[in-house]
């Protein structure tokens, strides 16, 4: 009894959450020949991981406890951490929850999405490895373990990118991802090694205790290496082409993990090294670094997305654009900013997951994601369309969906930062963020027009709605999108604020592991205070009343005086009006829909097109140049 109680002690839950995923992976590799066994094993392990993560909400997020867990109970000896540790504070758990949710939904979706592929066994093995890697990384309390987990997830992600190796460009994308990803991993390892050489510890808490006191050339170099390494995982500029390539080729369920979870692990790493290890966020210059790269990612990727004509590739660029929002907000280093950034991280996982799943549904039914070949699917796939629209509205920040709530906070945070610091540069960030949001809307208008609305090409006449399992998975994301959009107060109060508070409380983080945290720099995030007002529930209520009133009036005014075609052959009256031949398909291609915008920016777009050459050496060069610049930057300012 006591033993059972000991096993079920929530102190053990973090390691359980990681282990069930890895265990599921190995079990599937061993016994996964049978389809039913495989599915049950996969579902069990992802559900268990989600359950363990949710069970930790009460102690960690609500009560503010920091779980420190030493593997094999090897507590620190002589003031030095010897054992391998897990440390779960609100920030870790926040990301773990995101991971668990995304993994769960994507897993449910996979079961029917992957049913036409061969080698499902390998798929689930790799899938659970990937998930376990991310989960392990965000819960780890040890820098080297973070590296190991990063390697595992990179490997699994690369293998899964190339999983459908007959898809155009899949192997190519995987190779590019592998090369640049390994360069990033190498950077992390070298950074870890340097930190170890300086401090003789790998424990995050102890590093946080020791590193800030030991700022020299070597640790500055380590900062740059770690920053670039985790940047590779988050695909922030200049690593964004990899994300685009990988997403385009990977199965949709993997894209969800790569964009919703893997990038978050990069962001998590960046938060850990900037706020905790080096505690350098008090410096305006480091804030500048994060905000600059964030804004750059935001804008460059959204413009790149406008020029795409592949559904998933477009979504991939948007994914990085939204990661730019997160990084920018986190880089503001205010309570509102960090909270907004984390909020946007949740939302990004949800809506981007939803969108990728919708893209996957389209791919599953039509066999293509080329915007120029699709159209009019709303009549064939009505539920997918509605779910996609929820995702599209969310990402473009249409009230009352969740994207608006977090973007609204980001604008306020950046503008407030600009006013408080008197730095007009932050004002530019607000403006870029607002404009980016509109451009995001534009490209989703493009997608919805060229995929779901418009005319149906004749070869898609036999398309059917996807199976209920896939719709169910998308429905979960859509529901979460709406809930997080409608109750921003709850989300901030119970999820992001504790996490943001954890970001600003380095001292408890160090002390929870039994080290001396008195020397930790006390970063002050300021109070969490919105300058505007936004109450989505009341707003929605008002909108509904208005809509209802208008509908009643409209119906009274013969709004329903509708005639529509009920015959199988379409009469002239119900044909579209245009001056061409009767049966001509005149769907507008998605390729160049916003010509009026791109025309004025053609020099920029042409330049960007040339720059993203697709040659792996170029991307490697960007990585090296980025590393060199960040190194130079950190050597000068840190």
């Amino acid at each position: 009894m006591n033993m059972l109680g000991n096993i079920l002690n929530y102190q053990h839950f973090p390691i359980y959450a990681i282990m069930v995923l890895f265990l599921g992976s190995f079990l599937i590799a061993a016994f996964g020949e049978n389809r039913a066994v495989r599915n049950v094993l996969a579902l069990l392990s992802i559900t268990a991981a989600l359950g363990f993560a949710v069970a930790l909400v009460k102690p960690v997020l609500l009560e503010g406890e920091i779980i420190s867990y030493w593997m094999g109970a090897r507590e620190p000896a002589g003031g030095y951490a010897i054992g391998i540790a897990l440390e779960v504070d609100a920030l870790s758990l926040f990301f773990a929850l995101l991971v668990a949710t995304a993994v769960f939904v994507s897993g449910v979706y996979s079961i029917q999405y992957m049913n036409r592929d061969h080698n499902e066994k390998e798929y689930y093995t790799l899938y659970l490895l990937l998930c376990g890697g991310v989960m392990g990384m965000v819960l780890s309390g040890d820098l080297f373990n973070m590296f190991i987990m990063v390697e595992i997830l990179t490997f699994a992600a690369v293998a899964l990118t190339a999983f459908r190796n007959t898809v155009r460009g899949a192997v190519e994308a995987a190779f590019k991802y592998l090369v640049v990803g390994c360069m990033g991993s190498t950077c992390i390892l070298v950074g870890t090694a340097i930190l170890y050489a300086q401090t003789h510890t790998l424990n995050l808490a102890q590093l946080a205790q020791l590193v800030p006191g030991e700022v020299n050339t070597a640790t500055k170099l380590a900062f740059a290496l770690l920053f670039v390494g985790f940047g590779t995982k988050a695909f922030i500029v200049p690593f964004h082409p990899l994300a685009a390539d990988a997403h385009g080729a990977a199965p949709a369920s993997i894209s969800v993990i790569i964009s919703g979870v893997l990038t978050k692990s990069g962001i998590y790493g960046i938060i850990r090294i900037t706020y905790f290890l080096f505690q350098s966020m008090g410096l305006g210059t480091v804030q500048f670094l994060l905000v600059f790269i964030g804004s750059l990612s935001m804008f460059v990727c959204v413009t790149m997305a406008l020029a795409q004509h592949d559904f998933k590739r477009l979504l991939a660029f948007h994914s990085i654009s939204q990661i730019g929002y997160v990084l920018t907000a986190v880089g503001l280093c205010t309570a509102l900013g960090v909270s907004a950034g984390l909020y946007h991280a949740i939302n990004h996982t949800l809506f981007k997951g939803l969108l990728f799943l919708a893209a996957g549904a389209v791919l599953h039914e039509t066999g293509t994601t080329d915007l120029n070949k699709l159209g009019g699917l709303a009549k064939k796939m009505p539920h997918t369309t509605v779910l996609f629209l929820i995702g599209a509205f969310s990402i473009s920040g249409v009230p009352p969906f969740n994207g608006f709530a977090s973007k609204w906070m980001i604008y306020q945070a950046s503008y407030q930062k600009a006013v408080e610091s008197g730095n007009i540069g932050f004002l530019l960030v607000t403006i870029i963020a607002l404009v980016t949001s509109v451009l995001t809307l534009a490209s989703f208008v493009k997608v919805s027009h060229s995929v779901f609305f418009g005319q149906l090409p004749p070869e898609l006449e036999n398309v059917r709605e996807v199976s209920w399992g896939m719709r169910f998975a998308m429905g979960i994301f859509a529901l979460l999108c709406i809930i997080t959009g409608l109750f921003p107060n709850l989300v901030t109060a119970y999820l992001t604020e504790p996490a943001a508070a954890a970001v600003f409380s380095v001292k408890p983080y160090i002390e929870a592991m039994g080290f001396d945290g008195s020397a930790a720099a006390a970063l002050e995030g300021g109070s969490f205070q919105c300058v505007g007002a936004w109450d989505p529930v009341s707003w929605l209520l008002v909108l509904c009343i208005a809509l209802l009133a208008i509908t009643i009036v409209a119906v009274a005014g013969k709004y329903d005086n509708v005639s529509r075609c009920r015959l199988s052959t379409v009469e002239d009256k119900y044909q579209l009006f245009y001056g061409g031949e009767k049966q001509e398909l005149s769907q507008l291609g998605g390729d160049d829909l916003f010509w009026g915008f791109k025309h004025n920016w053609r020099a920029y777009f042409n330049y960007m097109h040339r720059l993203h050459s697709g040659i792996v050496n170029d991307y490697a060069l960007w990585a090296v140049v980025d590393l060199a610049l960040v190194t130079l930057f950190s050597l000068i300012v840190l």
Partner: protein
Amino acid sequence: MILLNYIAAFFLIGLGMYAIVTKYNLVKTVIGLSIADYGVNLLLISIGFNPGGTAPIFTWSELDYNSFFVDPVPQALTLTSIVIGACVTAMSLALVIKLEEQYGTIDTRQIRRLRG
């Protein structure tokens, strides 16, 4: 002496990066990755090296404050890193084979269907 190790380690890493950036042959790219990896391994080992230390093999009772040995942690790290390096090489070579099958070339300048 140990300084030479550090210099060599960073030289190897730099060499690997140089190969990745400038060589258009996929196999050479993979070699570059491996070289960089060896550089990291060398770096790790050098960090743990204490001149004159013994092998870090003790039982609990043998351990006291006078024992002088090389740091075992970087050695463990190195082992992990070597394993990972081998994985990278294996995986990337597998991908190179697939690429050669699909594209008929191993020149990176021609493997660029995904661009823009």
